[in-house]
């Protein structure tokens, strides 16, 4: 059972909450809300009548009380124990009288008695904490405050692993650790300090990251789930603000808004992509597919044409310049239907701006070769021949560049919208923005209902991001894979759209 965090949005991002009986790390710079998020997690536990423990390594009880004065947290709650730990020079029973680093509470409480304390070592901290067992929820704020434990990173890492075992296994608690985000080259007294978040993030079950960023002159706070083992979590960045109850994490569009129902979508034929887009391509709308010249857009447009054909829609295509006639013919013959027959029966219209097709067939138009084949005339002919059937269009923008100026392209686009498209017509525009002027690319982006961008990273992986859409997982970037069976393409499931297993086992179907 996931453990609710105290933020409904975070719970939904995490598919229910934190993994029960595990430890999750919250990293972030000062003032990003780590302690608030941690306290909110305990407050939620208190509201559920659970035993909670707050271990502070940096702030005394009074300082915490001050820090949380504006929040609705009750530090005096009977089920909440607040304790503190820190390293301070002192006397130990075993020591020879010289002062060494010892374990005390921040309020000055000695761990043993009289003037003696325990050395600031992992086993004594563990032994001290044992007195608070068991607990349902534990916060350690922050692990950075314990970095005096290890002269080297390994000791510190082992220590934190001991704590995690203690809290998860002995206490039976779900734990949240906070840590200052690692800063490269951070030194203290000429000694490189152990970056707490680096030492602990590999040991914890999950990592949440908080940070501040300047957006248009104002600082905004953000949260993302960096990792959460075994949880189908939302991978997007979320904006965070402070409220009386703690952090408010703004929800992001991830399902159908009220005005759209799945029947308003045309399936892409690729299950993962349909889920990413909230059902598929909005019927009667315009989808823009941008690629980087390396990532192939062809599988998406092929599958869309297959779907259009299955619904009996005639198809108009301005083939991408990089797709030679032989290849396109093979694709159409294999996946969509006999190309000659489709052309002859007014079910397929091909506008050959690049002038590379033989002009011997009905419905292959060549605007470059024939003045009568000016774009408006071509589209008017197509419109006549398709009758009142809803049409699917695939329009490659680069292919039109040799013939049409930017202005003409804009006019054609408006003309298509005004004179050509019926309400049920769905179109796909595709281009590589690097081949277009910024203004023209922006023009197409503005006019699109949905925008997908696909690219290949320097590691050779192809990704796809939904950049614009009235439905689906906006801003979600998913991995693209190619598979042996239809639809030959797999898009990693968006977060929360189904288990990881089904993504891996069923080819995205």
């Amino acid at each position, binding site marked *: 059972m996931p453990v609710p965090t105290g933020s409904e949005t975070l719970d939904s991002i995490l598919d229910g909450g934190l993994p029960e009986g595990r430890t999750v790390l919250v990293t972030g710079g000062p003032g990003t809300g780590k302690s608030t998020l941690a306290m909110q997690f305990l407050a939620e536990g208190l509201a559920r009548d659970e035993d909670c423990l707050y271990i502070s390594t940096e702030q005394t009880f009074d300082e915490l009380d001050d820090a949380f004065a504006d929040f609705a947290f009750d530090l005096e709650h009977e089920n909440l124990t607040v304790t503190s730990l820190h390293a301070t020079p002192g006397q*130990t*029973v*075993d020591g*020879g009288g010289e002062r060494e680093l010892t374990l005390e509470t921040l309020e000055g409480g000695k*761990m*043993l*008695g*009289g*003037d*003696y304390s*325990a*050395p600031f070592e992992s*086993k*004594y901290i563990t*032994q*001290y904490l*044992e*007195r608070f067992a068991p607990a349902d929820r534990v916060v350690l704020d922050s692990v950075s405050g314990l970095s005096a434990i290890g002269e080297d990173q390994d000791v510190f890492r082992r220590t934190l692993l001991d704590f995690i075992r203690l809290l998860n296994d002995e206490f039976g608690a779900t734990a949240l650790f906070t840590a200052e985000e690692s800063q490269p080259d951070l030194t203290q007294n000429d000694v490189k300090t152990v970056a707490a978040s680096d030492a602990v993030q590999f040991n914890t079950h999950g990592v949440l990251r908080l940070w501040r960023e300047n957006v248009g002159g104002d600082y905004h706070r953000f949260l993302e789930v960096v990792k959460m083992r075994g949880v189908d979590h939302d991978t997007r960045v979320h904006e965070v603000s402070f409220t009386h109850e703690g952090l408010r994490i703004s929800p992001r569009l991830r399902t159908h808004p009220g005005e759209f129902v799945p029947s308003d979508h045309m399936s892409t034929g690729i299950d993962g992509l349909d889920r990413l887009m909230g059902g598929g391509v909005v019927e009667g709308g315009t989808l823009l597919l941008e690629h980087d010249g390396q990532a192939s857009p062809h599988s998406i447009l092929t599958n869309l044409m297959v779907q259009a054909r299955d619904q009996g829609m005639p198809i108009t295509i301005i083939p991408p310049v990089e797709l030679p006639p032989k290849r396109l013919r093979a694709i159409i013959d294999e996946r969509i239907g006999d190309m000659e027959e489709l052309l002859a029966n007014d079910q397929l219209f091909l506008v050959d701006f690049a002038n590379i097709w033989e002009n011997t067939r009905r419905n292959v138009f060549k605007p470059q070769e024939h003045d009568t084949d000016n774009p408006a005339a071509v589209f008017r002919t197509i419109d006549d021949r398709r009758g009142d059937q809803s049409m699917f269009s695939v329009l490659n923008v680069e292919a039109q560049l040799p013939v049409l100026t930017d202005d003409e392209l804009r006019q054609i686009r408006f003309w298509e919208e005004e004179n050509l498209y019926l309400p049920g017509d769905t179109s796909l525009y595709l281009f590589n923005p690097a081949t277009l002027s910024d203004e023209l690319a922006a023009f197409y982006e503005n006019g699109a209902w949905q925008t997908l961008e696909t690219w290949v990273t320097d590691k050779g992986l192809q990704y796809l991001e939904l950049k614009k859409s009235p439905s689906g997982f906006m801003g979600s970037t998913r991995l693209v894979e190619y598979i042996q069976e239809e639809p030959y393409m797999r898009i990693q499931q968006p977060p929360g759209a189904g288990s990881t297993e089904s993504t891996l086992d069923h080819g995205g179907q």
Partner: protein
Amino acid sequence: MVPDSPAPGTNVIVLAPSLSDEKRTACLDLLEAGPVGRLDVLHVTYSGAPADLVDQWRDHHGELPGRMGIVVVGDQPGQHPGGDSVPENVFVTTANPNDITGLGMRLNNYLNDHDEDSRLVVCFDSMTEMLQFAELQPVFKFLHMFAGQLREADAVAHFHIDPGAHDTQTISRLKPLFDDSVDLTG
């Protein structure tokens, strides 16, 4: 031979041979510092078995005290010495004899949960064994600290030592830590 129950806040040193009957009787008597149901009994033992301690208590007093804790100091860490032979409400923990600080932490954890309405009584058995694992200096510091904590908690505590095992200097060094002494060496 054994005085009436010492006043609250008193630490007593008991000088007796380790395995003598007198020692055992004195020990049980010293622990009887009030109505049994209102006692919080803490045993620190280096060689006793928790089950035996519970049995001895039952033989002597009939019922178990309100709260009972046994810290077994032994060099076999991790082993749970109580097993099933100890009643559930008797808390048994272990400590490493080579780690005086760790023992102090265990004791602290026990004292931390002490209910002030009950009388804390403590048997520390023994300083002789403790001195087999640690130097006199840290032992002295530890006892000084622990006795101070017990005094503060209004406890009635006694600490065993076998005078035959130490030179007189060691005994006289430790003696000032205590408020009272019981000498059963005859």
